[in-house]
Structures are given as structure tokens and as C-alpha cells.
């Protein structure tokens, strides 16, 4: 008896997640998707209600001039395949969907899915190169929302959205798991940092720290490193009991309802704890989902979050600028190194200055990629693409663009303050057997190279 795994209904139960996880690689899920009926009336209504003048004008006045072609790393890495031009990709999917007023079949919806997740990471670089200011990334993000509503989304995205809805985190980390991990990390560090703590739900703390569930589940030492950096800077900080996770696979999945739930959980923690500022971990999409798009999902008309939110790189830059973190000159990065600009907080939130300020403190031989900052290319695995099995081959091809960019700098180290970029860069080095280039988040580097202030008790390990 095969269960119905692929439906338009979002996953809201643990059983639902488990059933999907049992279906290895989503084989059954995708075969059911091919048979799924498209609710054409509902689709037509959704398009009518949510696709307004901005998007329709974009599709309407696109001059098909192909200026966007070269801005897209998919086009570049697929030997200038004309079907990879952003304009073509969106016209052949969303454009066609609108022209047909939703009268499409499952095969067409699957074609849309393949383009929305397998041929676009919503990096928004094409928007910077279109004379008419057409943002194809924004349109693909919109298309993801439509596809989510009608059930045509990659298996991993369905699971991710379910995780957020069930656990309030992108992975099955319960509140208990989270708090235990914090305690465990403090214990682990006790010998080296006797006064280290991770204060939970401390009202009126200056800083409330939010992070990525992956750090809790797979890289708990990252939490310890964050704690050490708050500790040595004498930061009055805390983590919330609930609303600690700021990533949003729901955003990648096009699950706008789930996005709202996530961000409201975090804003509720702000309400409870009343911090002066919220600092989010080294993650790109988490920042975008919580700080850039989040306020709108939470219904905030001004578009601003309820309190100042800082990306980790902004906080680090401030700590270096104010001398709270002092770098040991002898321990600066000596090898040539470069910096990966995360689309989600650089092009889409203007923080390229902060990362460069950090580089000026920690690197002796910093080399810019070309193009850089607001114009930089996506790592090749953004927008959820890293995690989607059926598009692994597409992703691996796309990675070569960034690999060439990195190699051209001659760098032996890539600073990657973003989980998705970090994964993509790790994978490209492995897939293309590049063994001479390392990559790293900021936290481990900073902890290694900082000068520990005299008043902080520290017992160097043997």
C-alpha cells in the first residue's frame, strides 16, 4: 500500500515528515507528482489575486534584449545555453502560466518547478543588469510560492517547510534539544573558559542571539565559538528558549505562511526578552528571511523589524572597530585569501562594507573576487539548490563559475560567512578535487587570532 506523499497540503505533523523521509530520495513522491491533478480554477484565481502590475509589467515590457543572459551563472556555466537566459526561463514558465491563465497540466507545473529551483537560486543578480530593472529572481521566488500552494515543489523543500511548521526549526531540533546543546557546550568549554555561559531568556540583555538549527544539530561547536566571542567582548547577551532559529527553508520552499510563522516566533522572543539588538549567525538566507523580508511577513507596514537586527558580520565589524575584539598581528591570515559575498545580505541587504572592514583587520593578503560585492555571483548553491537531490547535477555544473572566480584570485582561503555559500564552496572543492583552497566561517578564525583580554579567565589547553 503506497501512501499519498505528494499533495498540495503543507506538512504539519511529525508523521508527515517521517513518511516523507522514509521515501528515499523522494522517488515515490516525484512519481506521485506526475499524476497529481492541477486545480486550474484555484491556480487561475491565485494568479489573478497575487500577480499584480509590477510582475505583469516586467513580463510585458521585457524587450528580450538578452542583457541578462551573461549576468546569470547558469547561462555562463552551461556553455551559453540560450534556454538558461533568465528572460527565457521566466517567460517560458511564469509568463506562459499567465498567458494560459492557469490552464496547465502537471507536466507543465513540473517544468516550472525544474526552472524555479533547478535553474534559479533567486540571487537577483540579473536585476542589476536589466535596463528595465526587471528582477527575474523575485519573479521566480513568486513562482515558487504559486508552486508550493499547488504542491509542485522538490521533496526536500516539502520536508524543510514541514520541519519549520512542526519544530519551528529547519531540522528536528526540539526546545529540549536546543537547551541541552547549550548546556553541553558550556560544559565542554569549562576547562578552557571557566566563566563562559550561555544565558537563556535573560530579559533586557543587550544582545539576543539567534542562529541556524544546523549549528545545534551538526556543528554545536559553532555555538561555543559564538559564546566565546560574546564572552571575551563582555557582551551582555542571551538566547531565547523559543524563537532561536532564524533560518527559513520555508522561504526557499515558497511557503509564505510558514515564513510568517517563523519570523513571528522570533519577534515574539524580542517582545519577551526586550534586547537592544538581535544578532543573527553567519547565514545569508536567515538574515534575509528575518530582517529583509521578515518584517513584511509579520505584517509590519514600515518594513522594519521590531528592534535593530544585525548580521553577524555587522556585529564583528563593530567589535573590531571599537577594539572589543583585538587581533594578534602574528596570527592574522598570512596566505592569500578572498571573501565570498552572500547574495542574501550583500546584494540584497548592502552589507558588503562590513565584511570588507573585517577583512582589513584579519587578513594580510586580501584579494577581491571579480565581480565583487553587490555585483558578485551566487556561490552556485543558493536558494535551497544545495539541498535538492534531483538538481544535484545542475548544481555541480553551476558551481564551476564560483570555482573559477576563486581560482582567479589565487587565494588559498575563502572567508564564507554564510551557511549556503560555505556548503557550496566545500562541495565544489570536493567535486572538482581542488585540495589547495580552504574555506571557513569567521567565528573559528576570530577565536584563534584574538588577543584574550587580561580580565577574562582562560586556561590554554595542553
Amino acid at each position, binding site marked *: 500500500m503506497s501512501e499519498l506523499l505528494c499533495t498540495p497540503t503543507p506538512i504539519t505533523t511529525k508523521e508527515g515528515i517521517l513518511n516523507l523521509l522514509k521515501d528515499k530520495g523522494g522517488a515515490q513522491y516525484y512519481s506521485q507528482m506526475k499524476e497529481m491533478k492541477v486545480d486550474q480554477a484555484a491556480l487561475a484565481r491565485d494568479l489573478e489575486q497575487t500577480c499584480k502590475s509590477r510582475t505583469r*509589467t516586467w513580463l510585458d515590457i521585457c524587450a*528580450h534584449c538578452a542583457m541578462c543572459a551573461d549576468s546569470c551563472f547558469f547561462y555562463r556555466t552551461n556553455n551559453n545555453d*540560450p*534556454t538558461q537566459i533568465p528572460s527565457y526561463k521566466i517567460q517560458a514558465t511564469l509568463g506562459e502560466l499567465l498567458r494560459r491563465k492557469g490552464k496547465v497540466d502537471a507536466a507543465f507545473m513540473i517544468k516550472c518547478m525544474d526552472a524555479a529551483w533547478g535553474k534559479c537560486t533567486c540571487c537577483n543578480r540579473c536585476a542589476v543588469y536589466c*535596463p*528595465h530593472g526587471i528582477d527575474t529572481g523575485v519573479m521566480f521566488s513568486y513562482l515558487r510560492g504559486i508552486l508550493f500552494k499547488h504542491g509542485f515543489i522538490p521533496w526536500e523543500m516539502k520536508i524543510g517547510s514541514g520541519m519549520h511548521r512542526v519544530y519551528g526549526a529547519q531540522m528536528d531540533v526540539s526546545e529540549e534539544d536546543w537547551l541541552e546543546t547549550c548546556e553541553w557546550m558550556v560544559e565542554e568549554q569549562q576547562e578552557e573558559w571557566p566563566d563562559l555561559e550561555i544565558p537563556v531568556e535573560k530579559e533586557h540583555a543587550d544582545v539576543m542571539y539567534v542562529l541556524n538549527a544546523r549549528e545545534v544539530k551538526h556543528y554545536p561547536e559553532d555555538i561555543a565559538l559564538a559564546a566565546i566571542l560574546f564572552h571575551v567582548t563582555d557582551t551582555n547577551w542571551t538566547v531565547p528558549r523559543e524563537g532561536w532559529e532564524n533560518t527559513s527553508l520555508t522561504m526557499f520552499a515558497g511557503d509564505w505562511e510558514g515564513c510568517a510563522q517563523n519570523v513571528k516566533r522570533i519577534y515574539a522572543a524580542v517582545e519577551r526578552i526586550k534586547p537592544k539588538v538581535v544578532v543573527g549567525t553567519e547565514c545569508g538566507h536567515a538574515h534575509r528571511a528575518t530582517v529583509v523580508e521578515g518584517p513584511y511577513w509579520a505584517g509590519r507596514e514600515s*518594513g522594519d523589524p521590531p528592534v535593530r537586527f544585525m548580521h553577524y558580520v555587522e556585529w564583528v565589524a563593530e567589535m573590531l572597530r571599537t577594539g572589543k575584539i583585538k587581533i594578534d598581528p602574528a596570527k592574522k591570515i598570512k596566505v592569500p585569501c578572498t571573501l565570498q559575498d552572500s547574495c542574501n545580505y550583500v546584494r540584497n541587504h*548592502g552589507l558588503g562594507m562590513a565584511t570588507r572592514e573585517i577583512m582589513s583587520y584579519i587578513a594580510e593578503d586580501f584579494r577581491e573576487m571579480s565581480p565583487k560585492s553587490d555585483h558578485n555571483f551566487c556561490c552556485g548553491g543558493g536558494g535551497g539548490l544545495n539541498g535538492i537531490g534531483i538538481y544535484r547535477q545542475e548544481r555541480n555544473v553551476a558551481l564551476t563559475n564560483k570555482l573559477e572566480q576563486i581560482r582567479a584570485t589565487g587565494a588559498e582561503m575563502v572567508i564564507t560567512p554564510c551557511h549556503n555559500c560555505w556548503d557550496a564552496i566545500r562541495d565544489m572543492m570536493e567535486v572538482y578535487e581542488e585540495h589547495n583552497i580552504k574555506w571557513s566561517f569567521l567565528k573559528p578564525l576570530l577565536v584563534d587570532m584574538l588577543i584574550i583580554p587580561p580580565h577574562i579567565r582562560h586556561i590554554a589547553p595542553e
Partner: protein
Amino acid sequence: MLDFITGPLFVISLVIFTVGMLARVVLYVRGLDWRLERIAYRYHTDRSIPGALASIFKWLIPGGTDGWRTQPVATTLFFLLHFGAVLVPLFLLGHTVLLERYVGISLPSLPGTLADILSVLSLAAILLLAARRMASPALRQLNSRADWFILLLTFLPFATGLMARLDTSAYQSWMVLHVLSGELFLILAPFTKLSHIVLFFLSRAQIGMDFAIKRGGATRGGAFPW
């Protein structure tokens, strides 16, 4: 017949053009939705207005943006076409005389030689853009009827106007065709991709506001570096 196409039909074309374009503007602005687009249009005007202006004006300058600089050939053709397509219809001496007589608007006029040069360059740019559409694999993938149609709509007034300019014995026939093709352009502009005559400005302003209000305007320190 001649008096109809140069009189009432001309006025009708101008009215359709103006009302149609205004309608496109109104419908565009009314269709913006801060929730759906997730842009607080009414807030942060201190940065949204400079953002919108930078987004428009940087793209009006040849080579003013990274996009223009990375595609020098296409950029040159676009600008050659648009210099003529904007300046000649508005400021050619013959046009300003007619405009003053029929509409009462008095505009300065271009020197004749400059108008000739601009028109020839525009026409050449149209032909080269058409050649680019046929030759480039990327363009061939994108081409649609609508793209060819607006190239044709733009080609006709320039071609007939220049034929008339040659002042052959067929002068008056070319002039009739020129007036008709110009009117066809005016009448169809609001309903075709030529609506970018106004929508370019709105679309650019919108994306400029998007980046200024939401996507980094507060942290980037200035407008988006297009």
C-alpha cells in the same frame, strides 16, 4: 484624405497616445501592493526617492552602469536608436512647426544637419538591432512577434521620414506614409512593448525603491551601485 490624416487623425493619435500612456501609468501605480511585493512604498522616503532617481538616471547615461559597460555593442546600438527616437520626433524643425500650429506647444528645434545625422544613426541602429536579433543564438531564443513588431513600428516613421527628406519627386507620397506610420506608432504605443516609453521610468523607479527601502538602502550607504 490628406487633410484628414494630417488633421483629425493626427489629433486622435496624439490623444490615444497620451491617454493610453497615462492609463498605463495609473494602472501600474494602482497595481502596486506593499504586502505582495514586500516593499514599504510609503515609508523611508528619505532614501527611496534618491534610490528611485539614481536607478533611473544612471541607466539614462551611456556606460553609466555596470550593465551598460559589460555589453558595449548592444549598449551603443540602444543609445544610437534612442537618441534619435527621442530627439527627432520632438525637436525636428518640421515637427515643432506642426506642434506649434496644431497644439500650441512651442519647442526649440534641432539644427537640420544634426537631425539628419540622428535619424540616419537611429535607422542604422534599428537595422543592426534587427541583425543582432537574427544572428545571436541568445536573441534567437528570445525573439517574439511583439519584439519584431515594435522594431517595425519604429523603423517605418524613420524610413519614410528620411525618404521624404531626400526631397524626390515623390516627396508628398513619402510624407503621407510618414504621417501615417507616425500615427500608427502613436496609436499602438500604449498597447505594445513601446509602452516602455513611460513604463521604463516607473519600473526603474520601483526597483530603485525596492533596493533603497528594503534591500540595503539603510545599510549600504547610498543608492545601489548599478
